[in-house]
Each structure stands twice: as C-alpha cells, then as structure tokens.
C-alpha cells in the first residue's frame, strides 16, 4: 500500500521531469551549502582545539616592558624589566605550579652539511612542564645544565627532520651560531600553534646558555618573558592578582604608575579564540540554513502548483476510492522524495566542495557523520514541513469540485 503510493508519487514526478529537477536544485544547493559550511566550521574548530591543547593549560605569559597604549614605546632598560629572580619569586606564590623564564630568538643551525634557520628558545626544564611537552627520544636537560650554562639542546620534530633527516639526532653535535651543542633529546610533536606557526620548528637550550653564548644580553639576569602555569584554571584570577602585586612591589612601581611588564592570560585568549571559531561556524551554518529554507519554500511552491494542476486527477482518484490519507501521502511522499534525493545530491556536492576547499586552500575540513545526519534530518523535515500544506490542500479537496475542475 505505502509502496504503491511511493510508485504513484514517483510517477507524478517523472511526468514533469524538468520541474522536479529544478525544485530539487533548491535542495541540492541548500544542503550542499550546509554541509560545506559545517565541514569548514568543524575543521576550523578542530584546528583551534588542537593548537589550544598543544599550547598547554592554565598559562600566563609575562612580557618585559609594558605594551600599553599611550604611544610611548618602552625604553631599552624597561624592555628588560623582568628578571630570573622575579621568576623565582613568582614560583613561591600559592597556586603557581611551574615558572619558566624564556629568552627566545632565531639562529642558523648547522649539522654536517645541513643548514637550517629556526627559532631557538632559551629556558628551563619548567618550560617543558608548563607546555606539557614530552621528550620522546634521549632526555631533557636539567636545572644544573641551566646553572652551569652547558651547551646542550633539545630539538623539535621539524628542525630534527630538516637537519638530520631519518638519522637519530640524539648525541650528535650541532652548531648554533658557530657554538657546538650536544643534542640531548628530541621533543614530541606539537603541530601548528595559535599563531599558525609550526611549533615543532624549534630548538630548546638552557636559558643561561642562550643569554651568554648565543644571543647575549646587555643586562645579565634579565629575561624577555616568563611563562607561568597555575595548578588549576579556577585559581588563575587569584594568581594574576598576586603576581601583579608581587612584581609591582619588586619593581618598586608606585601607585598609579604603569607597570613595567605586561601580563597575558593565554588560556583566556585561547578560550576566546575557540569561542569565536565556534560562533563563526554557527554563523556559517545559519547562513547556509537560509538557503535550505529557500529550497524548502521552492518545494512548497511547486507542490502548490502541482496540486492545482492535478486537481482533476485528484478528483478521479477520489471518485474511485482514494481516501484523504491516500492523497495526502502521495503528495507528501512527492515532496519528501524531492527533498531527500535533492539533499543526497547536495551532500555529495557539499563533500566535494569541502574536499576541494581543503585541497585548494589547505584549511582543514571535517566531514562528520553528525553534519551529514543534520543535513538529512533537516532535508526530510523541510520536505515534510513544506510538503504538508500543499498535500493537505489536495487531500481536503471535495471530490465533485475536483472532478468539475477544468
């Protein structure tokens, strides 16, 4: 019975192929757009999630020199306002888990005949802890390496790849700005950071070595930045306050004066980045849904025309025993078939478009089961919702009026 009605609906659609196809096109574009937008949105969300989790959790970063507005750039002296002693003092604050003073820079690295320019980070073992960055081969350097400024290095995956190829770097000697360093270990993969840079293209050396032997510093004992990790996320505001107070006190910053450092809550920045990506992908989905709605209205429009055109047919069917429900089902099925076939095609189009976007722009796309399910659910709902009114109209026709219709 239901199968027979499906046949009837199919036959009616076949009778006006061009119109059926054009109506479907509305759904094809609507669902295609939704799938494409959701894939891009989810891809973006996934990418940001990845870089957030690679960043480490509950992090503050303290920068030497204030970067506040006012237009007055910090003097050179102020740019080195933070000290290793500051870092040690912060480590004593309650709620602070690890503190890593950092001296970053760039340098040319040489291994044998290979040459690679990469970022060189001078820090302490606490840095690896704060960023939950494992050493996957060899071992880390220690606090005593930092104290005695030994020439040892930990090498990131990308840097290792470019300098050593498939060779195991551990134990080999590389040259950083001419000075020889022994590679102690290899760092685990981190992937792309929040700023879009490859975090694995790096070399980590002891802070003191960086300051004295590699980059040099006019102000010994000062650092450019300090990374601070708190024990929990909840405690971050408390630590922020106590840290600021401590540093103002240590730097003898008077009441009302600008601090000579700036503090950033990396976790909050990451959260807001994640939030804005989420909002963006929602927005994309919403915009795409509008085209789905337009497609649905197209179905309703065509179904209404079809009901009017086929009034006589409906009358004939009723005169030989079609119930209201039979007519309703026939027209509803027609609408649902149009929307489901249309959305299947739209699904393929959307997936194709997403893969194309990925191939062409390199943005990550995720085609998830959930977005496919959503697209299909919405399509069926659109079909039923927009098909129902015309179908009901058809079913409600008076048999004799319908038969008289010319």
């Amino acid at each position: 019975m239901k199968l027979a009605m499906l046949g009837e609906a199919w036959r009616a659609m076949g009778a006006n192929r061009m119109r059926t196809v054009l109506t479907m096109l509305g759904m094809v574009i609507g669902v295609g757009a939704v799938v494409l937008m959701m894939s891009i949105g989810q891809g973006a969300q996934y990418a940001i999630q990845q870089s957030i989790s690679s960043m480490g959790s509950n992090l503050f970063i303290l920068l030497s020199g204030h970067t506040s507005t006012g237009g007055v750039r910090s003097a050179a002296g102020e740019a080195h306002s933070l000290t290793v002693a500051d870092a040690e003092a912060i480590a004593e604050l309650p709620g602070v888990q690890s503190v890593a003073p950092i001296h970053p820079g760039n340098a040319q690295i040489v291994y044998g005949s290979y040459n690679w320019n990469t970022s060189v980070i001078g820090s302490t073992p606490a840095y690896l802890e704060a960023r939950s960055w494992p050493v996957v081969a060899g071992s880390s350097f220690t606090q005593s390496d930092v104290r005695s400024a030994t020439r040892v290095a930990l090498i990131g995956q990308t840097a290792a790849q470019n300098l050593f190829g498939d060779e195991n770097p551990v134990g080999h000697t590389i040259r950083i700005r001419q000075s020889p360093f022994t590679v102690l270990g290899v760092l685990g993969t981190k992937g792309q950071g929040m700023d879009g840079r490859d975090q694995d293209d790096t070399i980590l050396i002891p802070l003191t070595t960086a300051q004295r032997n590699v980059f040099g510093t006019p102000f010994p004992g000062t650092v450019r930045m300090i990374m601070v990790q708190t024990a929990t996320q909840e405690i971050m505001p408390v630590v922020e306050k106590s840290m600021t107070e401590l540093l103002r006190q240590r730097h003898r910053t008077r009441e009302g004066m600008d601090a000579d450092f700036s503090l950033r809550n990396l976790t909050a920045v990451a959260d807001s980045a994640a939030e804005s990506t989420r909002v963006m992908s929602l927005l994309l989905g919403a915009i795409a849904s509008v085209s789905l709605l337009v497609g649905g209205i197209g179905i309703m429009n065509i179904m209404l025309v079809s009901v009017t055109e086929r009034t006589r047919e409906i009358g004939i069917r009723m005169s030989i025993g079609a119930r209201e429900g039979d007519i309703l089902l026939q027209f509803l099925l027609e609408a649902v078939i149009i929307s489901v076939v249309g959305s299947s095609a739209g699904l393929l189009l959307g997936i194709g478009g997403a893969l194309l976007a990925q191939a062409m722009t390199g943005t990550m796309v995720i085609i998830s089961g959930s977005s496919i399910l959503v697209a299909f659910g919405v399509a069926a709902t659109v079909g039923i919702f927009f098909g129902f009114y015309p179908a009901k109209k058809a079913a409600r026709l008076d048999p004799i009026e319908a038969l008289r219709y010319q």
Partner: protein
Amino acid sequence: MSDAVIRIEGLSKSYQTSAGLFPALKDVNLVIEKGEFVAIMGPSGSGKSTFMNILGCLDAPTLGSYTLDGRAVASLDSDELAGLRNRTIGFVFQGFNLLPRMSLRDNVALPLIYAGIALAERQKRAHEMLARVGLDAKALSLPNQISGGQQQRVAIARALVSHPRLLLADEPTGNLDSHTSIEIMKLFEALNAEGITIVLVTHETDIAQHAQRQVHFYDGSIISDQATPVRGTA
C-alpha cells in the same frame, strides 16, 4: 424491501449560485432493488448528473436521506465514503476520466491500490477486466492511443475491477457513435445479467431501451417511473 440497494427519501439538492440558492433536485423519492437496470432520462439541466453524483457518494444532498446497501450515507465519514466508492460503487463518466499518463492496465488497477491489494494481484485482475472488455491486447497503451469507445470500455473495466454491487454511469455513451454505444450497452446488459445493479443516465431513448426501468426527471423532480415497454419485464 430488504433487497433495496438504493433507497432515496425526500432528497433535495440546492446549489449556491450568484443569484441565490438554486434547487437542482426537489423532494426526490426512489427505491432501486438489487439486480435492477435503471435508465435515468430527462432534458438537459433536469438534475440527472446531480442525482448520480449523490448516488455515487461524490456529493451530499442538502436534504433527505440516502440509504445505500442498508447504510445511511449521511452518517458516514469521509474514509467510509471513500470505501463505498472503492468497493461498493463503480462509476462511469461521460468523459471517461482516465489518468492520461498511465497505461490502461494501471488505470484499471488504480482502485485496487486504494483497496490495499498487492501489485501482482492488482495486475492480474486488471488484465482479467481488460480481457472482459476486449482490450487486454492494449493493456500497456496509454489512453490517448486508443479510440473513445475503447477508452469508455477501459473506464468500465476500472469501475468493475473491485467487483462493485452497483454500477453508476452518467451518459456513458454520450461521446460515442451509435455502433459503439450499442457495444457498450451489450456489455452493460451482460453485467446486469450477472447480477450487478446498474443505474445509467442517457438522453437517447434507444439506449434507454436496454434498461428494464426508465425514470424520467424534469426540473429536479421525478415525473415518471415505469418499466421499459417494448422489452417487457424479464
């Protein structure tokens, strides 16, 4: 009396027109027994089609009662009426009313879809019915590929496919030449001989001769109701 297929009492039907209510049927009373073959006659506009549409449960009277096969039609809901149209009544229209994009077989099988009968059985019975009206060879043709007389035979096959007790035909030969008309009437006579009650509207007296009883309408009322003279009572 319990054998009455149709019992009409005090039946009136008025149409709403721009000039006010127009009475198309006025206090019509009629009883048709099982197995009768009745011709309804009368001038154009006398209410014959209006009456047939009510008999066929396609339209409802304004006043009066219609009892079909012992059931008061006024008390039935739309699904029950559809059931009557599907199984109890076969209706043949002057204009055939076949669905143009369907093969003859599918046209004939259509009522069986609404009776919930499976595809194989539907097709089998459609073929049987088409064979009965001499058109099985054209089962897969479309309605516009056959003649008017053939189309009417297909329409009759469709009306008969669910084995109705009552066959209603509103000027079934109105669009056909006299030779084809006689063929159709022979078919009706044969069906009547099998026990199907037939009510047929016609303008032509020689067509009405095939019936046993002739009911004349004039201006919405029955003015005469008598047995067909030349043929006599069977």
